[in-house]
């Protein structure tokens, strides 16, 4: 199982823990994520608002880099996935758009190529049963709130699960022994794109999400998007100041939890990186 | 009936000069009784005008269309062949047109593989209410065939020896 891996810029910066833990998990599972060469930023999120054709052109360029590795392109970031998958589907289905994009990027589109989110790869290609077999340290007694945010499963044309009621993360984490909670705000927007210009709005949105997760009894939030993670994790201090609520709820990537379950060390999955560290809680449960 | 299949042409002697100078496109249309034939009737009752080079052969349903008909039409000198019936979902016999569509799909690719100019073959769905579409289709097809001229390649083959 070899995939052409596109990290995207966040995964090499703020979300290095996502990248590192995904690599550690993949290694444990025997999945090869081979990083494509010479990749560039996918352009999320301003480019597709300014020039949609150019955004698709960038995606086409990125998809073309998979040549020689695999037509299956593994992506971790929800925004990268969105941009690339959307362009891919459009190009496959709309000949006119395809020629426009091919012209702008100067690259012929390969209809065989497929953008795949790592969640989807684990679920469909690898399979829950195979994953279960690799679990050496079940996440027992850990109550996780799986957070999808607004982008990961939408719109329906590019969804790899029910776009309004996805369960893919729950299924994976339950396969690793965790208990997942049913909660209301799993699909709400965290307001990431407003983080700078409208911080107060974001604080409210994030507060609602964290509130809801805690009310459902979650001990940790798992997510699959660098911006969601950053926002939910980093805003907790601001929320304390503004609303006087101390959530103290760790927000981690699903790859970190799955990595631990499959025997990676805390260091390998960079579990200590979060602002609200998950380490003490996990240690208490003997998962570290 | 003991008639032979020979050409028993009327001896209306009108066209002494024939072909070279006064070539007229020959278009054969196999159309279904319920939709396209009735659509063509509607074009008539609405007094729409279209070029007079199309010859209609009525079949009950496009399901009755056997690709042999098309080959025979070309063999008899057709410059273009149209097959038209009810839109998907409208077939008087519920599914004749769906079966026909499969035949078209296969047969058109075969013709293309053999080098038949696919501009000379046309498939359409024309409903009983689409008199205008019938007229447009015939107009356009006639123009295309006019532009292409006689189907010389096929005729040369027929005329060998």
């Amino acid at each position, binding site marked *: 199982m070899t995939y052409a891996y596109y990290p995207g810029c966040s995964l090499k910066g703020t979300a290095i823990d996502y990248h590192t833990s995904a690599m550690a998990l993949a290694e444990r599972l025997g999945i090869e994520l081979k990083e494509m060469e010479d990749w560039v930023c996918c352009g999320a999120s301003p480019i597709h608002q300014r020039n949609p054709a150019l955004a698709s052109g960038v995606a086409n360029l990125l998809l073309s880099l998979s040549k020689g590795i695999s037509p299956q392109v593994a992506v971790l970031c929800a925004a990268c996935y969105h941009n690339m998958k959307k362009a891919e589907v459009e190009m496959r289905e709309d000949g006119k758009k395809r020629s426009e994009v091919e012209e702008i990027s100067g690259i012929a589109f390969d209809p065989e190529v497929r953008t795949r989110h790592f969640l989807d790869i684990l679920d469909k290609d690898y399979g829950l049963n195979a994953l279960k077999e690799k679990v050496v340290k079940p996440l027992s007694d850990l109550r996780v709130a799986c957070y999808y945010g607004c982008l990961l499963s939408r719109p329906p044309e590019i969804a790899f699960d029910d776009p309004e*009621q996805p369960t893919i993360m729950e299924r994976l984490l339950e396969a690793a022994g965790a208990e997942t909670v049913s909660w209301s705000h799993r699909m709400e927007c965290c307001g990431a794109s407003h983080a700078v210009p409208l911080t107060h709005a974001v604080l409210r949105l994030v507060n609602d999400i964290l509130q809801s997760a805690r009310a459902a009894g979650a001990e940790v939030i798992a997510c699959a998007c660098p911006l969601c993670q950053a926002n939910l994790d980093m805003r907790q201090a601001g929320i304390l100041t503004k609303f006087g609520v101390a959530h103290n709820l760790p927000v981690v990537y699903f790859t970190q939890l799955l990595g631990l379950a499959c025997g990676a060390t805390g260091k390998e999955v960079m579990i200590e990186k979060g602002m609200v560290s998950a380490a003490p809680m996990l240690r208490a449960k003997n998962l570290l | 009936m003991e008639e032979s299949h020979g050409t028993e*042409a009327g001896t209306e002697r009108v066209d002494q000069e024939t072909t070279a100078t006064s070539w007229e496109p020959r278009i054969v249309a196999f159309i279904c009784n319920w939709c396209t034939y009735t659509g063509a009737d509607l074009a008539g009752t609405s007094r729409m005008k279209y070029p007079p080079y199309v010859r209609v*052969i009525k079949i009950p349903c496009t399901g009755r269309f056997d690709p042999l008909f098309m080959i*025979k039409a070309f063999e008899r000198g057709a410059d273009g062949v149209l097959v038209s019936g009810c839109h998907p979902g409208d077939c008087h016999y519920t599914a004749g047109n769906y079966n026909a569509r499969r035949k078209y799909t296969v047969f058109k690719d075969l013709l293309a593989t053999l080098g038949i100019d696919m501009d000379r073959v046309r498939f359409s769905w024309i409903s009983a209410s689409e008199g205008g579409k019938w007229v447009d289709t015939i107009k356009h097809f006639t123009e295309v065939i006019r532009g292409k001229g006689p189907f010389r390649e096929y005729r040369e083959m027929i005329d060998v020896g």
Partner: protein
Amino acid sequence: MSKIGVFVCHCGENISRTVDCERVARASEQIRGVAFATDYKYMCSDPGQALIKKAIREYELDGVVVSSCSPHMHEKTFRKAVEEAGLNPFLCEMANIREHCSWVHEKEETTTRKAIELVRLMVEKVKRNVALEPIRVNVTKRALVIGGGVGGIQAALDIADGGHEVILVEKDPSVGGHMAQLSETFPTLDCSQCILTPKMVDVGSHPNIKLYTYSEVEKIEGFVGNFKVTIKKKARSVDIDKCTGCGECQLKCPSKKIPSEFDRGLKNRTAIYIPFPQAVPARPVIDREHCIYFTKGKCKACQKVCPAGAIDYEQTDEYVEEEVGGIVVATGFDLYTVGEQGPYPDYRGYGEYGYGEDPDIIDGLQFERLASASGPTGGAILRPSDGKEPKSVVFLKCIGSRHPSKGIEFCSKICCMYTAKHTMLYKHKVHDGTAYVFYMDIRSPGKGYDEFVRRAIEEDGAVYLRGRVSRIYRSGDHLIVKGADTLSGAAVEIEADMVVLATAVMPQPGIEGLFQKLGISYDQYKFANEAHPKLRPVECATAGIFLAGACQGPKDIPETVAQASGAASKVQILFSRDEMLREPVVAKVNENTCIACWYCLEVCPFKAITQKEIRDRKGNLIKRVAEVNPSVCTGCGTCAATCFSNSIDLAGFTDEQIYSEINALMAVGQDLFPEPGKEEGESPDEQAA
């Protein structure tokens, strides 16, 4: 040599204005095999027809081409005329020189030439026409009605009142269908059960109606006028002839916690049960899946208390055969699945709305039960979770319907009306409550319908918000409904005590199995298809089968009843004759060359082709061949075009006829190539020279 007559009509000036009709007649005379040709001003007039008849007798014609208007116009007229002159009507064909020629072309040489060619083409066809006899089919004057909802009930009663026997098959233990579940009906707000139950009783007691409840159609053979139906009577475990319907068994049954289908899970029932008090027949049935005796092997409480000794645990499914001439399909609808587990696995549902997880999120039929006087709350609007009166109820329309990303594009048609009705019923019972409605559009065409919706809004104060809801979740005692009000452009959050989802109207799950048995077509959603969307909305394309109600598409009660009466009328038209005549345009198999590959059998849209065994005198199988049932065949010719060895042909459109038409096609004087190998040197060019 054929003796064909050609009759060229001027149609007043309709044809002669652009076509030189006289020349067409003269030219026709020259076509080999034409014995007589003439032109006349109005061929369809009495003198015109007389002219044809006279010529047939005088020239002993064996074929006729009337060169005039479209066959759709006058084919019947001329065939009748020909028949009156002693010729088989199928030896008459029409060359359409009006709609396809004179009316669509200018007055030019080419137009007259085209007319001549069209005549020639038909002459060549008629030469190969053969006399055909109409097919006579006996009619069994009994009808089968499938489905005992209001549509099936109406159709059965109408046919039975017309004096014919009816077999009514209902899959559930009682007739009544969904209408029996409704509280009040729009736009009059009269009580649904009050108007339906008398009809149910009629159906149960009508001398012409044989009722099979808890039964399903297992198999259908035959064709219009002559269907043979096998009905599976599911084991009821109760002898309904002995049973008096006293209900003792229900009271004593220890298995009491089974969600009631009739009350859509809002109330429980016992394992032996009469689905609802007004059921017809008012006889119980044992639900073997839940019965303690059937699951654990002991109990027999019902048998012990039954005073009539009607409980029969040994009963098995029984199969009965009935012969009928016509069939009405009235299988009705079910609702779109909103929870994760539903009967429509192809559709995604609305997990995000929490249906099935939160008891206070219900669908429209559940609300009907809540509002019904015979319902679980006795008609009080109380929310299922704790029995409190909800002070704020949010109604969501278009759940499933008009939502392509959930798999459905159509409009369910009845939800706008019943939601308006729901808001009224709610407001009439909870005066201080608020009813919110999220809608996309309000569709209320129909007599008194729009007025009804306006009343809900204006008099009863339902709050209509134009927009959709993204999510519903519980927050303490309330449900938070997050949606958009697109008219004000605001995102709205409503604290609701109860949410009602107006889910899409779908065909009964798995109904395509029945449709396939019947040989009728259905659309992508599995709604049955009518023969023609405008002009034959009650018939199926398969002769003798008619549609009533929501099995065809979403319909409300009056539409269903009207269509049911229409279907009943169609059945009675069918039954008005002892035998039927059918056009003999049917397929026929050449048994010598048929190789039994069964392509024809598979492509036939009407299941008119079956396998036939040819045996020698000793009974040894020689070969199998395809056989066409001429009573079922409708003459589409798909089989003929599919057969590789052309071992099946279609009367009226035979290979020979079409071949001859193609051969005759080439323009006069342009015929460069005579038929290869035959009559060389006879091409018109050379003749001309």
